[in-house]
């Protein structure tokens, strides 16, 4: 298995798309983190002052786009083999297709973790940088409104969430095979379907995979990528009464890992054994 993962990592390093996606993720993270930070504390704005935990958190957890692009990378790891007809050579070298799928999921997780790490470093750096520049200190003489342990937990969540989403993308890509359909599907699911489901069935919101991954990284429940508020909302009184909090860290991680395993097993039993013509 180690050799198969090394092969998949070599495949990633020898084409331009993965690096392009990583750079895009870094740029989007920087853009949204800086935009949030520049608006923080403005009168009538949606982002609180960087001197408050909520305000600073909205900047330091601007990692949702990077996590979404990690999922897209995972999709391309699997679907690229069919788009460029390289699956033939891959399966000639390793006829045990389940092992290929497992190696791709592990590789996607490694690459996804890098996306999460880069995004966490950029977002945290932007938040702390803006706070320091403005002199927005935390309460009780603390240098910042969020402690080091909280920031580290959010960063770890971004790394883990992006890794699991990328592995999920690899599983979905194996299931669908069509790169265009899978990539479009990931965007529609994350940006539209989860918002709609989460808006209508508030109690289900924490259990939706992309939402669970973002809350793992400390994103406030109900905020889409880049801090956009979801468009579908229930009446505020009902939402306040029924809205559950985000899943605990371990529960969110277990939910995502379970989803990865279920999708991979379904792919292994259905589309993966199909003819490669």
């Amino acid at each position, binding site marked *: 298995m180690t*050799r198969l993962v*090394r*092969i998949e990592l*070599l*495949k990633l390093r*020898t*084409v*331009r*798309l993965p690096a392009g996606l990583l750079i895009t993720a870094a740029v989007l993270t920087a853009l949204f983190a800086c935009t949030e930070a520049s608006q923080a504390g403005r009168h009538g704005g949606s982002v609180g002052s960087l001197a408050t935990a909520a305000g600073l958190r909205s900047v330091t957890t601007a990692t949702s786009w990077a996590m979404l692009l990690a999922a897209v990378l995972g999709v391309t790891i699997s679907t*690229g083999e069919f788009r*460029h*007809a*390289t699956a*033939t*050579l891959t*399966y*000639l*070298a*390793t*006829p*045990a297709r389940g092992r290929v799928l497992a190696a791709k999921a592990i590789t996607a997780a490694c690459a996804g973790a890098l996306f999460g790490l880069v995004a966490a470093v950029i977002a945290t750096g932007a938040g702390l940088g803006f706070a320091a520049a403005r002199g927005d200190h935390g309460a009780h003489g603390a240098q910042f409104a969020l402690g080091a342990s909280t920031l580290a937990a959010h960063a770890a969540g971004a790394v883990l969430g992006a890794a699991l989403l990328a592995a999920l993308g690899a599983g979905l890509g194996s299931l669908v095979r069509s790169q265009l359909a899978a990539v479009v599907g990931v965007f529609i699911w994350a940006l539209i379907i989860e918002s709609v489901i989460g808006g209508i069935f508030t109690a289900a919101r924490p259990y939706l995979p992309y939402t669970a991954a973002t809350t793992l990284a400390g994103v406030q429940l109900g905020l889409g990528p880049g801090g956009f508020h979801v468009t579908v909302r229930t009446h505020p009184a009902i939402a306040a009464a029924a809205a559950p909090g985000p899943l605990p860290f371990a529960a969110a991680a277990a939910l995502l890992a379970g989803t990865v395993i279920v999708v991979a097993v379904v792919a292994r039993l259905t589309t993966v*054994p199909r*003819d*490669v*013509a």
Partner: protein
Amino acid sequence: MTTDAMSAAAPLAAAPVEARGLTKRFGPLTAVNRLSFTAPRGAITGFLGPNGAGKTTSLRMLLGLITPTEGTALINGRRYSALPGPLHAVGAVLEACTAHPGRTARNHLRIHAMAGDVPGERITRVLELTGLAGAADRRAGEFSLGMRQRLGLATALLCDPEILILDEPANGLDPEGVRWLRQLLRDLAAEGRTVLMSSHILAEVAQTADRVVIVDQGHLVAQATLAELTAGHDRGLEDAFLRLTGHTPEVPR
């Protein structure tokens, strides 16, 4: 098992490549129908048939890429998926088998060298052998069809396999390339390797192959040495092929 049956089975079991009653149905279409043939060691076996005869499907079944509806495809007496170190047993060039267009030829080969656990020197060796040494660091997307065929052959030869399964390997090669390929395949067969090569260019097969397997509409219509097949035909393989596939050859005026 009777003595006769045993003696009949023995040479089949010894064949490096063997199809036993292979059948593949795609919905209502039967692409390959109870096809049995062998490719012996130390010879080039031409695999011929009109367009849509089931050649590519048969080769992909031999390589475990397409699951037969019925029958068995064996390489060295085993299914492809059961081969230990399949890249060392079989090298394959298939029609749609291309490198990622954004990857250089050298990196493409690095991946397959890692998969086959062969040293990096083999990459240099096959790049030189296939005439791609000067283009090794160009992306495969920039390659002509002929260069992609050469890269496919380089990939197939990377792990020094005993068996070569090639689907239309002369496609896109220029006349010099066709001659080079012919000599390469002859040399490999002379070393005792097994070459199974599909083609629809009969003149090329007539110059290259020792044996011929002809399929039509998924059925086996002939399996013989080239000499046996062409005996009594003025225009050699072409006459024999057209007669066997149901087309009466025109008599030249």
